[in-house]
């Protein structure tokens, strides 16, 4: 894929990762104690879930940072140059293309001429051969 499309894909990936991160955290976060009056809810494996959430959040944030780093790397790899430089190069290449095209045409014409000559010679030689050989 060309580099600009890769960059666009990377931007979308960053967006998706941040969406997933916040969504997962909001879904899996353990409830927060609002006030000391309300009793704690009955613990249903709180330690495992807390560990899971902590690990998940670490992994997801690491992925987010990785994606941002990859974006930076892709930006650094962009082969940018000025518009004027490009237009100048295009004009140069067009001129060179014209010149090479003319030479190709010249060579082609000369080669076709030679081909015709050789074919004539061959025809003459074949005719001579036929004429020299008398039937018995």
């Amino acid at each position, binding site marked *: 894929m060309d580099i600009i499309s890769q*960059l666009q894909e990377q931007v979308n990936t960053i967006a998706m990762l941040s969406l997933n991160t916040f969504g997962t955290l909001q879904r899996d976060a353990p409830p927060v104690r609002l006030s000391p009056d309300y009793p704690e809810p009955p613990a249903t494996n709180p330690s495992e879930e807390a560990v899971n959430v902590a690990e998940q959040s670490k992994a997801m944030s690491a992925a987010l940072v990785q994606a941002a780093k990859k974006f930076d790397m892709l930006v650094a790899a962009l082969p940018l140059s000025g518009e004027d430089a490009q237009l100048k190069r295009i004009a140069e*290449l067009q001129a060179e293309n014209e010149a090479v095209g003319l030479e190709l045409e010249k060579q082609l014409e000369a080669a076709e001429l030679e081909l015709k000559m050789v074919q004539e010679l061959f025809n003459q030689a074949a005719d001579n051969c036929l004429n020299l050989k008398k039937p018995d």
Partner: protein
Amino acid sequence: MVGSPPPFAFLPSSPLLPPSTCDAGVDLKRGLLMTAWVDHQASHKTLWLRHGHSRSRPQRRPSLSLAGSLPERPCRRVVTEERREEMTTATSSSYPPPPPYYRLYKDYEHDPASAPDPPPPIQGAFPLFGATYTTDVVLPTLEDQGVRQLYPKGPNIDIKKELRSLNRELQLHILELADILVERPSQYARKVEDISLIFKNMHHLLNSLRPHQARAALVHILERQIQRRKQAVEDIKKRREEARRLLKESLQIVDGQLR
């Protein structure tokens, strides 16, 4: 003029009657339906107009007669063409007629130059099936889409630098969003809007790189073409040399045999 025709008005949508008749109309004095017949005789060079209350038979005496000669084309064609156009607008089930400029190409097979040239390609904006399109394809600026532009305007901006700084800002905003969700969860909307603004700016910057990519592709194509042409020139030269060499050799052989 023979007799005076009654005041007569054509009805707007009447079915097409057989040739040499006009459509039915209304006798304005009595409010009755009438039919008018138009008759032209080239030999007499006269045009007769007859009225009648019957749809199948005109009255004997013409209500109006005009002296003069009409062109060879019968009256019917003028009538039927107008009628046909009216019919197509009135009834939607009939197909539209072909565009009338087909007549300009009557002699195309014998004389292609007699037909007019095709119209030149359209430039600028043109309407098509109710929507306006333009031939000048340009990326609309962010302001046109109602989005604030975060990176500086101007002809020469360092795109790489801007993209990198937008990336940093994005990371910072995501972190701030996490913070807000912990401390002040009800104020998430503004932060989310900011993040989407940054994304839009990034995408717009990347889209503005596409013309540059197109020019680079053109450069690449030209370079490849030049290389192919050079290769072809070399090939031709080589073959010609080989052919010449073979001819020389065969000449030497023939000479050797002759001596």
